[in-house]
């Protein structure tokens, strides 16, 4: 059953890739925040977006997820450019989890309600699966916002994954977590990827990129600076900015 569903999801995911971004730009109040950004991503593996603060990583993720509107350029998911249609197959988890002022179970149920899954049995199964995945079965009826930071992020991950998205965007999902919680979230990320969800992840943690990502997209100044296989890019960066960043030097956007 799981294999069948994974296979089905794999084929859905492949229908959305390759992702081609061409000359993408975002201008706010006359300031170019994303500047002629172009890259191509394939369906397989986990892609890490890396780069100093202000490089445009979060904005790129939000543009891909249609949370903000681009100024110009194209985002094409296997030649499909209607972002609204694609958004249904995507999910996103933010650095600080945004949970509704409701119980854990109601947070999960809300997602199913939005995705129009009215069948009670299916709802119950998906909720049960999500609670198990997040390890929150004992907290189902507790207010979500009273959970610890790690538990809140696990709930946010489980909520994002419960409708089995083809693409999952993660904006520094472990930035404020301790090593144990980070490990749990990383396991959830790997599990989701194994089951057919393409992951695009922002991280500043080079170790995390090595543990999770097959590929890195290194951004500076709203542009792609380098793109390559994780270990190749970390061990043998070609650009000055990437060399500084991966050697552990403090790189800021002002130093470009």
């Amino acid at each position: 059953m799981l294999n069948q569903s994974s296979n089905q999801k794999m084929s859905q995911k492949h229908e959305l890739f390759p992702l081609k971004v061409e000359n993408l730009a975002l201008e706010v109040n006359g300031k170019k925040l994303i500047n002629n950004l172009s890259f191509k991503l394939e369906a397989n593996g986990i892609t890490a977006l890396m780069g100093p603060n202000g490089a445009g990583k979060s904005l790129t993720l939000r543009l891909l997820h249609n949370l903000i509107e681009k100024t110009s350029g194209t985002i094409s998911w296997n030649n499909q450019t209607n972002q609204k249609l694609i958004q249904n197959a995507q999910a996103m988890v933010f650095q600080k989890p945004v949970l509704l002022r409701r119980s854990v179970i109601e947070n999960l149920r809300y997602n199913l309600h939005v995705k129009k899954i009215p069948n009670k049995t299916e709802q119950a199964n998906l909720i049960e699966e999500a609670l198990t995945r997040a390890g929150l079965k004992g907290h189902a009826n507790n207010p979500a916002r009273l959970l610890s930071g790690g538990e809140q992020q696990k709930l946010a991950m489980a909520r994002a994954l419960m409708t089995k998205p083809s693409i999952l965007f993660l904006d520094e999902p472990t930035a404020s977590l301790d090593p144990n919680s980070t490990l749990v979230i990383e396991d959830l990320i790997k599990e989701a990827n194994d089951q057919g969800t393409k992951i695009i992840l922002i991280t500043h943690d080079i170790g995390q990129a090595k543990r999770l990502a097959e590929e890195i997209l290194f951004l500076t100044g709203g542009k792609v600076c380098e793109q390559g296989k994780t270990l190749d890019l970390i061990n043998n960066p070609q650009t000055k900015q990437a060399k500084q960043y991966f050697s552990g030097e403090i790189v800021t956007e002002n130093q470009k």
Partner: protein
Amino acid sequence: MTDISEAFANALHLIISADKDLVEIILLSLKVNLIAVFISCVIGLSIGALLAVYKFKGRTICLITLSALMGLPPVVVGLIVYIFLSNSGPLGILGLLYTPTAMIIAQAILITPIIAALTRQTLEVMHNEYYEQLKSLGVSKLAMAKTLLWDGRYQLITVVLAGFGRALAEVGAVMIVGGNINHLTRIMTTAIALETSKGNLSLALGLGIILIIMSFIVNGLVYAINLTAERQAYA
């Protein structure tokens, strides 16, 4: 001083003995104000939630207008409603002037902007927090407004109670459109004004005490609701 203490003693007697006139005035006050607040909630909560979610051209003007309407002078509202409902006015044919319905209309006009503006303010903060997550889940703007109304329910109860408190204390508009007619349109605040001018301090004080107790209850409820919501992380 003796007069005041005697009036105070008489007032307490009126309250303890549940004086018929006193009870009638209190019940009419509650009826008029509760219906007015209900109408204001239906309109004000909807307007507030929609303004919190939808960003459109002219929204700033709407917000400024709403804030300005919050400070509407009650006597002016009373005058306008009076003009509309008077025999020569456009709605004179309805024969509503000097009835509790006219008072409800005036009160609703006064309270709706307050509830709408406070709702917008409360829900906009929540909207800023929820927006990206709800958009990510694929929630429509209208569904966002509904979600905010539900998740903000504890704060909104305090908004509604603030509106109710304002209505309870109002005197100018209801005096003009209700006419303060005994057994028909006499409510607590208008009765206090009339009885004081007549020198009947006992009834005025008795009603004043009840009004203050109600105000305490309303504010106590606001505090308790906020505390419960914070404890349960629903605030």
